[in-house]
């Protein structure tokens, strides 16, 4: 099995954009794969395994993000990351601590295999 490459465009589904929690979930997911994975949005290309890098995109809901992976598990990586970008980890109500009950069901892992 040689290296393969895979590309897919995803639209940000997170209501509040790719803020820190979605960025954290994305970076963790990307790190599960051996493939080198990059995201490209609005002309900026970054490493999908770095939270800091993902935050530099400042991608809002509806923004297009191209996912490009290269490696033996490129197809799986692209599918999983696209699924996460298109999902919405943001609970409908403000998550800043007034409610407090929402976060438990939103662990990144629970979204990892939906794609």
């Amino acid at each position, binding site marked *: 099995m040689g290296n393969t490459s895979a590309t897919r465009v995803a639209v940000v589904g997170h209501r509040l*954009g790719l*803020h820190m929690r979605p960025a954290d979930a994305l970076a963790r997911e990307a790190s599960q794969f051996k493939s080198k994975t990059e995201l490209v949005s609005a002309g900026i290309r970054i490493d999908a395994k770095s939270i800091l890098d993902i935050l530099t995109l400042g991608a*809002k809901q509806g923004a297009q993000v191209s996912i490009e992976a290269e490696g033996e598990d490129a197809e799986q990586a692209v599918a999983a990351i696209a699924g996460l970008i298109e999902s919405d980890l943001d609970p409908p109500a403000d998550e*800043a*601590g007034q409610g407090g009950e929402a976060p438990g069901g939103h662990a990144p892992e629970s979204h990892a295999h939906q794609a």
Partner: protein
Amino acid sequence: MKFADFISQDAIQTQVEATDKPGVIREMASLLLGAQEIADEQFESIVEAILKREELGSTGIGRGVAVPHTKHPSVDKLCGAVAVSESGVDFDSLDGEKVHLLFLLVSPPDRPGDHLRALENISRQLRDDSFCSFLKQSKTAEDIWQLLEEADNNQFSS
């Protein structure tokens, strides 16, 4: 968005004393209190909300940087503090490294876009190695403010 749009010049501290997460968050919230960015009677509520956010996942984002934050209804504009720790703070960062550079943000619940743009600005500037290391080596609040101004004037990232 520029640093000057959300970092309070009076809420910057080098050589923070705290060495753990709750301590440094409290110390940084005190900076915002001293700068009159947050109200005295909201202090505990804000600290608690920031710590609660940390329970969802550390805001230690790698490269020795953390951005603890929360939304809070008592503020009507995004405000932020900056702190530098020479010895490092244990922050449960994703990469396991101690944190030396902290940006604490409190934003109004109805302005999520501002929060996203502040994160974008902080992360873009911190990708520049020299900006990052200059900040970490800063000895005075004046030095930090000057670096932030230089970053605002695009003297680091292109």
